[in-house]
């Protein structure tokens, strides 16, 4: 990855992180868009799996710092998702919107599952409801938003790797 590409990817990453902390709380949806997952996935597919996991860990810890009750959960979820995304980058960026959406969906759902299970805050039927209803909904919204953002950021990100 050239320096120019790296800078453009960093800009896209910063933009998505910014959206996560501005647009997401502003919208306040019950099933919110997870721009952080999109950002991590976007960066992870351009890195080696180990480095992607490290990025996931740092971003996750930074996000967890704002919600101390679940400190570590986000880091765990994001590092696993980032590692898997980097490992499956050929599938992820096949220039197929449906596949990309599916990957965003799976990534977000996996992240939520890891986050909720490791967080130990919700249990029993509420956890099931969260995992089977709200997480898929949030994953759907995230997937749609991710595909839309990929289309919008295509001039910035250039050809997809893989």
């Amino acid at each position, binding site marked *: 990855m050239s320096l120019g590409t790296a800078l453009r990817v960093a800009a896209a990453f910063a933009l998505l*992180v*910014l959206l996560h*902390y*501005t*647009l*997401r*709380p*502003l*919208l*306040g949806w019950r099933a919110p868009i997870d721009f952080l997952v999109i950002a991590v996935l976007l960066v992870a597919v351009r890195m*080696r*799996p*180990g*480095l992607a*996991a*490290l990025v*996931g*860990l*740092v971003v*996750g*810890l*930074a*996000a*967890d*710092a*704002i919600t*101390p009750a679940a*400190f*570590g*959960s986000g*880091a*765990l979820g994001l*590092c*696993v998702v980032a*590692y898997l995304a980097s490992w499956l980058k050929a599938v992820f960026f096949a220039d197929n919107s449906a596949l990309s959406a599916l990957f965003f969906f799976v990534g977000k759902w996996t992240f939520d599952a890891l986050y909720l299970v*490791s967080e130990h805050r919700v249990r029993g039927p509420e956890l099931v409801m969260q995992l089977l209803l709200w997480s898929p909904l949030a994953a759907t919204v995230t997937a749609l938003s991710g595909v839309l953002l990929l289309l919008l950021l295509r001039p910035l990100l250039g050809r997809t790797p893989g």
Partner: protein
Amino acid sequence: MARATRTGSVVDNSLLVFCLIASVIALFLPAKSRDKSAATLRRTISAPLALLQRRAELSRAAFLSYDDRMQRMGDLASLRSDNTGLQSENARLRELLGLGRRLQWGFVAGEASPAQLDVDVVQHQILQTFNVTVGARAGVQPFAPVVSEGGLVGMIETVDAASSIAISYSHPDFRVSVTTPNDSAFGIVQAHLVSSGAERGLLEMRGVPFRSPLKAGQLIVSSGLGGTYPRGIRVGTVIREIVTAEKWARTYLLQPSAPLANIGPVFVLLKKRADAGVETVWMSPQAADSAARGVAAAGDSLARRDSLAREAALQESAARRAALDSARDSTATDSVRPRPSVPSPTAPAGAPVRVPVVTGGSAGAPAPRPAPQPRDTARAPVARPTVPRPTVPRPTVPVPNGTGDAGRAGRAALP
């Protein structure tokens, strides 16, 4: 190549394991250490993110609370509007309660519709007929007077079982025989029929003899002549004289006592009550006091020369109140006896008084009817008192409304 790949894979796996271990450690940190670590991160790399998130949340809260505030303001405005309406309705009903207390019996309360007319609507489209929510079942008959606290509103024209249709004083067919409270001038009041302008909705008092000029602010009441309206219902106050084709008599423009705007609850006087007379109802001390105040104010604006007259009016009012108190006392002791005469509010204490008007028995019960009087000669059988006029010194300045001693003195001074 394969070695490099294997090395890369080992590094990746090592990093993954490191990240997983770090995450698990973060997850299972003691609460104190976890909070400390989170606080450190919040103060460093997460600080701008936390700030952004907080501002976004505040913006959203402000946005949501704006809607809430707007809704609350709307509710407040609605409540304020309702409150204003309720206050004015309450004031009207209180006034009407006062009138009902003074009438005591022989009336039916109804609601005039269209009610809640806006003043503008009334000014631009004078209310000539209106429905009253009481009819024949309640004893309402055609030609029954419709009154409110202010005075005469109109007359029942047609009666159904449960409702009636009345004409207001603005109707072209409306006529009422009127006089001043001291009978100094008689005339016929009808609607002032102009198509536009500020004089719409006013009344005309026609046929006033040239020898009986009236001053602005003079109260005009129904005379009782003609049989439809009993004597003493307030009709209006004189605004000024107007020029008409009738050169043989004066015509005056009157301000109606009972505004048609926002007309709501009204009373329909039943025949028995009208026959019994209502002279003391609108001329009670309370009503007369307010009328005197209004008239005195009008006189003030016309000519500021009535300090003595006002004093006389106050004395007059005090005398009336004392007379009413004594009348109430004697009624309380003997309700069978004919009621003592309640002096006409326009007559000063000690001055000649009218023959007592029997206003009925105790509250709520129909009073014994007075001896029937021929309607057409209503004035004739009224026995004028033979009490000589007192020799009290009369004020030299006339009362602006022409009532009372001062008024009489003023009239006496007229050519």
